């Protein structure tokens, strides 16, 4: 009889494993991006070892040319490949927005379904590391607003692996947002199933069950919600925490079922609050459940400002546990 150690690993390693598995399964999968090949294996070491294992044809270092990176991925995807393009930091998406919204997203529709763009754009994002306004932002809302794009944002290593493999083999372009702070922090490490482990897009995960209020989130802010749920429990408030995992498609049935039960909802994300995905979610909940709600849906997000550098100001930009607790209290007046 053999016993196996639980496979505990940080998110960065789980993402690396996802690409390794996908490349092993299908020779049409290839990676391209700045600095991703050895010896560095990417600025965050996420692609470490992959160019040695699969060669530099399939793990391609590119010039610092985001438009050329995404364009090459779009063309190769139409021609039958499954490219995984890395945009080092999400704020750089602005450089290649045309290739994403006008091309990757629209080509299936514009061609009447004759050509498809099965590609993934991996990008790291998130404040809290003192990188300032242009290296910290969550910008997923633009892709939600671009029909044709899918968007996934994992909150833990197992989901990161499972969602990424699903995204690579999805028939449509997926923006895959990786919370930068979670890459190598042991506090966010978790057990990750071996092999070809997949988590479907559009299937939410109920992280904490509760009956008084629904906290709906995705990405790193799921952890803020979990901590808030613990604090609320101490005060006798039972909070349910829903991790959406992907926001296009998103699991509307799970959201409506949870809020139908709790009658109260707080939507939490790191992107600036104004016109964030929380605004859409709040609207949908009101449209569907208005008459049954005990209180209006509350939003907790980043402040509506560029992300500041000074650590006290940067912290104040980010949603805090106390902000979530306060929002829950607003639903309980």
């Amino acid at each position, binding site marked *: 009889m053999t016993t196996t150690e639980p496979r505990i690993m940080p998110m960065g390693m789980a993402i690396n494993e996802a690409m390794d598995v996908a490349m092993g399964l299908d020779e049409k999968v290839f990676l391209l991006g700045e600095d991703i090949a050895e010896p560095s294996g990417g600025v965050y070491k996420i692609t470490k070892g992959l160019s040695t294992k699969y060669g530099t044809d399939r793990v391609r270092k590119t010039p610092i040319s985001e438009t050329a990176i995404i*364009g*090459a991925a779009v063309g*190769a995807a139409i021609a039958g490949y499954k490219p995984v393009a890395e945009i080092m930091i999400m704020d750089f998406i602005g450089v290649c927005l045309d290739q994403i919204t006008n091309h990757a997203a629209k080509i*299936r529709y514009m061609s*009447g*379904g004759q050509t498809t763009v099965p590609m993934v754009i991996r990008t790291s994002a998130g404040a809290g590391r003192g990188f300032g306004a242009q290296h910290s932002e969550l910008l997923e809302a633009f892709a939600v607003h671009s029909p044709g794009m899918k968007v996934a944002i994992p909150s833990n290593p197992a989901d990161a692996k499972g969602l990424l493999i699903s995204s690579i083999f999805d*028939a449509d372009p997926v923006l895959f947002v990786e919370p930068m702070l979670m890459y190598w922090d042991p506090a966010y490490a978790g057990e990750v199933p071996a092999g070809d482990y997949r988590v479907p897009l559009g299937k939410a995960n109920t992280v904490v069950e509760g009956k008084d209020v629904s906290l709906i989130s995705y990405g790193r802010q799921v952890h803020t919600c979990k901590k808030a749920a613990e604090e609320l429990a101490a005060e006798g408030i039972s909070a349910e925490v829903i991790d959406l995992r992907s926001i296009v498609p998103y699991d509307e049935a799970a959201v409506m079922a949870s809020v139908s039960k709790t009658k109260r909802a707080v939507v939490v994300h790191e992107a600036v609050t104004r016109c964030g995905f929380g605004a859409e979610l709040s609207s949908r909940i009101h449209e569907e459940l208005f008459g049954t709600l005990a209180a209006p849906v509350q939003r907790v997000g980043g402040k509506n400002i560029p992300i500041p550098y000074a650590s006290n100001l940067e912290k104040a930009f980010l949603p805090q546990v106390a902000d979530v607790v306060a929002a829950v209290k607003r639903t309980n007046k």
Partner: protein
Amino acid sequence: MATTNRPDAPDRDALLRMFEIQQKIKTADERFRAMLTSGQVQLIYYSPRGQECISAGYAVHLRPDDYVVTIYRGLHDHIAKGVPMRELWAEFLGRGTGTCKGKGGPMHVTHPKSGLMVTTGIVGAGIPIANGFGLAAKLSGTDQVTVVNFGDGASNIGAFHEGLNMAAVWKLPVIFVCQNNLYGEHTPMAMSTGVEYISERASSYGMPGVTVNGNDPVAMWKVAGEAVARARAGEGPTLIEARTYRFWGHLMGDAMEYMPKEERKAAMAADPLPAFRAWLLDNGHANEAQLTEIEDQIKALVDDAVEFAMNSPEPPMDELYTDVYEEIIK
């Protein structure tokens, strides 16, 4: 073009194929403009008239499995790559029988069966995508080549710089065809572009660049053939600047007040297609009966396509939400 015969000309078969492509473009374009000006149809239309030698010159070197990427002024490239006339017309008129089921329109004609992979309405944006087709061919180990067409205006946008650099670094089998019609929308090249010849820019990427008279079918054929051969042999990309002129301005309905009247008149007087026709006859590459037969067949082909498109229904309403994703997500 010169009336004397030319030792560098292609064989008769290639010459007649080029003539046929050009005649198809001219006939289709004339019909579109006639139907627009008579009010029979309404559509956004960017006439390629005047530029047809360029498409014919590269297309005769391509195989059906080679890739072409083009832009909103793309009718000549669509026809040259062999997109079927009926489906092409139906797409331009927004019918459910069009290449893209009427969902793309003139600016997004796509027909992968002919190798017409992308038509973009965004200046310069096809260039980086063409690299992806080149990369796919390279990774697959095929000798397919990609021709990407764009205008002189596109050479001033960032995607051009990023795309040509990457193609050179990766030695991709891509031919960059800048159809320089001397105007970027309403602005003459001299007011927007710091070099006299766009082909000069190739040297900054470490790739060959050549300027050719895009209205000379033999010269265009020769330059394109060299670039296609180089790409097929794995020797990397080429930038071709094909100088030409657009007879009907940026967009149909454009008053063209920014184009000097004499300049346009002279360009139209030097219309490359009748000149090519005369040259073919003068040098014994074809006789009058052969060319007339080709012209008659093309007229019938366009008549048939117009009838097909005009009699086709609009796309059914249940197409509204399909083809956004593989599954329907509202």
